[in-house]
């Protein structure tokens, strides 16, 4: 197996209120079959052995689904291969390369420490309306609702969002429209989601605005970095649903 020697410039920031900056480290002898996070593990072992505190970064499942890992790598959220950072492997880098590692940046995602950011705004948006009211135990038989395959597939495609926030980090405006679009489209496409459709759309968009995310200006950087391949058509669907809901709210 090939091994790489790299220079990494990592954003270090003691806590949310401290000023941060890039610090350069040597990452030596990195196996090319290691994942990007494993490279950071190795670097952290080396740092701690020298008595330097480890670089803090969020990660959990390391199989691309929990959405906890973040990191902008050379300026691109999750790095060069349209997967999550944990599924990015070092064979995508060249020996001797300098790699910039920074946190996901947006006003709505304040940095907590080093590469960790606070993405709880996403949770609050979903608390505002990202659900279908289905009291436990009150459901009818699952096959009583027929859902045409195209609708089921479209909902599934949107529901694949892993809530990592790369879309926000990639967006020059720090907009969360791809995320909110995916969440709303998932539920708004299904028959079960119709009764609360308008209310859900309005509540989620208003919460999104209140959380300090920017506005979508159709740059589509979000779609390019999304590890779950959420298409930007969820944004146009949200644009449509929101105006319908706003009009219907005003005439009620």
């Amino acid at each position, binding site marked *: 197996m090939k091994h790489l020697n790299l220079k990494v410039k990592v954003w270090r920031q003691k806590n949310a209120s401290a000023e941060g900056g890039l610090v350069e480290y040597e990452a030596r002898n990195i196996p090319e079959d290691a994942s990007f996070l494993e490279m950071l593990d190795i670097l952290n072992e080396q740092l701690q052995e020298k008595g330097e505190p480890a670089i803090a970064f969020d990660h959990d499942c390391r199989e691309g689904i929990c959405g906890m890992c973040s990191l902008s790598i050379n300026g691109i959220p999750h790095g060069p291969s349209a997967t999550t950072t944990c599924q990015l492997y070092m064979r995508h880098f060249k020996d001797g390369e300098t790699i910039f590692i920074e946190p996901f*940046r947006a006003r709505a995602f304040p940095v907590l420490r080093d590469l960790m950011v606070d993405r709880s705004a996403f949770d609050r948006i979903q608390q505002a309306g990202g659900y279908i009211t289905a009291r436990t135990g009150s459901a009818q038989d699952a096959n009583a609702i027929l859902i045409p395959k195209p609708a089921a597939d479209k909902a599934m495609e949107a529901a694949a969002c892993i809530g990592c926030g790369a879309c926000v980090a990639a967006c020059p405006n720090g907009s969360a429209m791809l995320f909110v679009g995916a969440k709303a489209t998932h539920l708004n496409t299904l028959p079960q989601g119709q009764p609360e459709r308008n209310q859900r759309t309005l509540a989620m968009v208003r919460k999104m605005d209140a959380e300090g995310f920017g506005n979508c200006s159709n740059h589509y950087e979000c779609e390019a970095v999304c590890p779950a391949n959420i298409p930007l058509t969820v944004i146009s669907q949200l*644009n449509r649903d929101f105006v319908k809901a706003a009009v219907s709210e005003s005439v009620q």
Partner: protein
Amino acid sequence: MKFLASFYGSSIGKKWVVALTGLMLVGYVVGHLVGNLQIFAGPEQINQYAAMLHSMPKALWVIRAVLIAGLFLHVFTTLKLAAENKAAKARQNERRASTAPKPAKKTMVLSGLVLLSFIVYHLLHFTVRSTDPRFHSLPRGEHDVHTMVILGFQNPLVSGFYLLSVFLLCMHLSHGLQSVLQTLGINSKSLRDTLNKGGQTVSWILFAGYASIPVAVLLNKLTVVAP
């Protein structure tokens, strides 16, 4: 009223305002081109057209007012969005990169602002006629648009700025047209490519149309015709 305030207060609402006003301005750009191209049909044709427009001053002023209001909303709302967006991205990466680099997208505000200055100049030049004393004594009188345009474009500086501006306009539209549709919720997986290419094609057809006039003047294909 409450509805409008809350609608305009939301991010998507503002985007709709930009998109709808943008769409209206595109309509004007198309209509204006249809008028302008009549210059190739000779002085009678285009001068009659100008006279026709001026024969109904009330309607003309209503259209002008709507266009100016639309333009104002378009520009004002965009600037407001741009300011919000800047604030939402409090800090940029030290190392910046883009996965979808398209100059047209990145320069919407800039191309828009240059266009705005062009619109002001263009109105002063051909509508108010305050920049060129010759326009006050045209051979066929006030509505001799044919002569006025040709005289105007014979100045390479004027033509140059005009060409640059229509180029920026069409670049603005090449992203703007499909962007408008996306914002208005008109997009889907199957339509996506068509809308994208359609938007660009329309933009560059418009560019060709607008550019043809100063180019023809500079190449002496369009010359002043004595009455």
